[in-house]
């Protein structure tokens, strides 16, 4: 298997200094792109180019050639000689320029050309602020991705995750958001009690999570811009495992009020509860199908954790078992196109992230380390971010459905439970 490691040092950001991309296997037939250095301020253009390159590399769908690998590096269409690119097997050419308007405004214009058609496909302008140059670059990456693949990109989306830092005999837990590449980390919540199971509301303006700050597991909803937060349901029992319905009106939860973990649906407006499961074994980790008609959950009813599905549209429906391979299949989520599920699977004492398409009768392991968990699928359905454990610390890694793998840069403390936002752009 081809294995190469790209280490890209980014200047001017000491906290986020190193991004290691370990691409084990990308697409078998990647798009070749000539990414010509942008015109404009050299240091800013350098930073923007690096972000774009990393964003496109993480998709596993591109082979990117920079100035040094090209025969000519035109800065506008008049100087473009397609044969210089055709000879290198390049499919698309991207060129652009950065304009520092003033101290608070910066804009980028980029153009995409098809070598095969010998014509310009796109010209785009992105307006931003100099302090958020990386975000501007993510927008360009997504524009390139969508022009070439026809799918929306996720470089401009955000991640939500939990970190734990141990110091002075105390653990401090934090709920954080970062850009999709792990940079631009910001803290949503700090606590000396555990925080688990974070997830985004469908409009990505609120988050839900489980906090132990009251002394036991309780589900909170927090508005990320205002910081306003509330306990989703008040009672004296544990509540956990929140999952928003696709329309944002309901939340499925695991309640412990029956003396055992059972799944309920909470109407967020009138706080009405509907019980979904009734079994003496563990039922938890519910998640909604893309159109909201089904709920998948982990149940121990067969003697080991397995995934089950419940049809919400059918009266008195019984849970249908979905996984049969191995003795541990848990925390499932549906692909956004509803063609399959992604979950944690135990194989020979290793916990891996696995994929099962509904039209196949076998599962596809996507990862192969020891303790992989908490998979979360990107809004376009092409990438899965998950938590790994290495040298007894937690890190975040990603795998694309095409097989490319990457790691996000080290963030201080143990990192776990990533959750991917919806589209923000």
């Amino acid at each position, binding site marked *: 298997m081809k294995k190469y490691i790209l280490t890209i040092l980014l200047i001017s950001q000491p906290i986020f200094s190193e991004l290691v991309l370990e691409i084990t296997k990308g697409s078998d037939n990647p798009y070749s792109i000539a990414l010509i250095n942008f015109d404009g301020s050299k240091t800013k253009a350098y930073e923007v180019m690096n972000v774009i390159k990393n964003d496109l590399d993480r998709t596993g769908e591109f082979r990117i050639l920079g100035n040094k690998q090209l025969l000519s590096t035109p800065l506008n269409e008049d100087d473009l000689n397609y044969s210089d690119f055709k000879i290198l097997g390049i499919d698309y050419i991207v060129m652009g320029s950065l304009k520092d308007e003033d101290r608070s405004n910066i804009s980028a214009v980029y153009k995409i050309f098809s070598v095969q058609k010998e*014509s*310009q*496909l*796109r*010209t*785009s*302008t*992105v*307006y*931003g*602020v100099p302090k958020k140059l990386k*975000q*501007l670059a993510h927008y360009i990456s997504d*524009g390139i991705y969508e*022009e070439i693949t026809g799918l929306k990109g996720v470089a*401009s989306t955000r991640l939500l995750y939990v970190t734990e830092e141990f110091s002075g005999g105390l653990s401090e837990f934090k709920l954080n958001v970062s850009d999709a590449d792990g940079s631009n980390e*910001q803290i*949503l*919540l*700090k*606590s*000396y*009690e*555990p925080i*688990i*199971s974070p997830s985004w509301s469908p409009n990505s*303006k609120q988050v839900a999570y489980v906090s*132990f*700050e*009251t*002394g*036991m*597991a309780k589900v909170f909803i927090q508005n*990320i*811009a*205002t*910081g306003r937060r509330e306990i989703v349901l008040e009672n004296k029992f*544990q509540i*956990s495992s929140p999952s928003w319905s696709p329309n944002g009106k309901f939340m499925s939860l*695991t309640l*412990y009020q029956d003396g*055992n*973990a059972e799944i309920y649906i909470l109407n967020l407006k009138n706080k009405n509860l509907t019980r979904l499961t009734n079994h003496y074994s*563990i039922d*938890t*980790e519910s998640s909604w199908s893309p159109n909201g008609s089904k709920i998948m959950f*982990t149940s121990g009813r067969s003697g*080991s*954790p397995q995934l089950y599905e419940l049809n919400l549209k059918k009266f008195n429906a019984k849970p249908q078992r979905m996984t049969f391979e191995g003795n541990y299949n*848990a*925390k499932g989520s549906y692909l956004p196109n509803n063609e399959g599920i992604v979950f*944690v699977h*135990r194989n020979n004492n290793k*916990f891996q992230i696995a994929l099962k398409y509904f039209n196949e009768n076998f599962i596809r392991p996507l990862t192969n380390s*020891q*303790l992989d*968990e908490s998979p979360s699928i990107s809004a376009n359905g092409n990438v899965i971010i998950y938590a790994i454990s290495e040298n*007894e610390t937690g890190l975040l890694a990603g795998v694309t459905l095409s097989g490319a793998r990457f790691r996000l840069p080290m963030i201080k403390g143990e990192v776990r439970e990533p959750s991917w936002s919806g589209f*923000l*752009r």
Partner: protein
Amino acid sequence: MFNIQKLANKNLFNLCIIIFLVSSCSSMNVTEETVYDGGIRTVKAAIKEQASLDYKTKAIFTNATVYFEFDKFNLNSKSLQTLKSAVAAMKDNSAIKITISGHADERGTREYNLALGQRRAESVRDYFAINGINENRIMVKSYGEERPISVGSNEASYSKNRRAEIK
């Protein structure tokens, strides 16, 4: 000829993507957009008021820890031995109330482990109940895999972490 199409105006801040589709012989996309600049506010969780939720132990005789097998919540003979003295202490003094917290090792998913920790705590509670202790004197909760006693990805640590603590 310009065919102007407004694609999205998603949020109250300043995101607006307007795509002008230029319909000439070779169609080219012309787009303009502004980077979304949503703010974020940091919140600190209040320090918990443990007393309001947990039963406070009035005697150290009931302090005990019992251990479990992977993905199991049944009590073994050693655990039963451990719990005997705690039961006796609670019978001797009816004022004693206890909190049982269940825990899991780091393997497996966090929510499943939270539920598993709860089952372990409940197994202990059931033992007290069978032996004549009123369930009102027992508070049960789980920390799942979030509060390990021993840090390390090996069986020596795992076996210490799969536990129920009685306090």
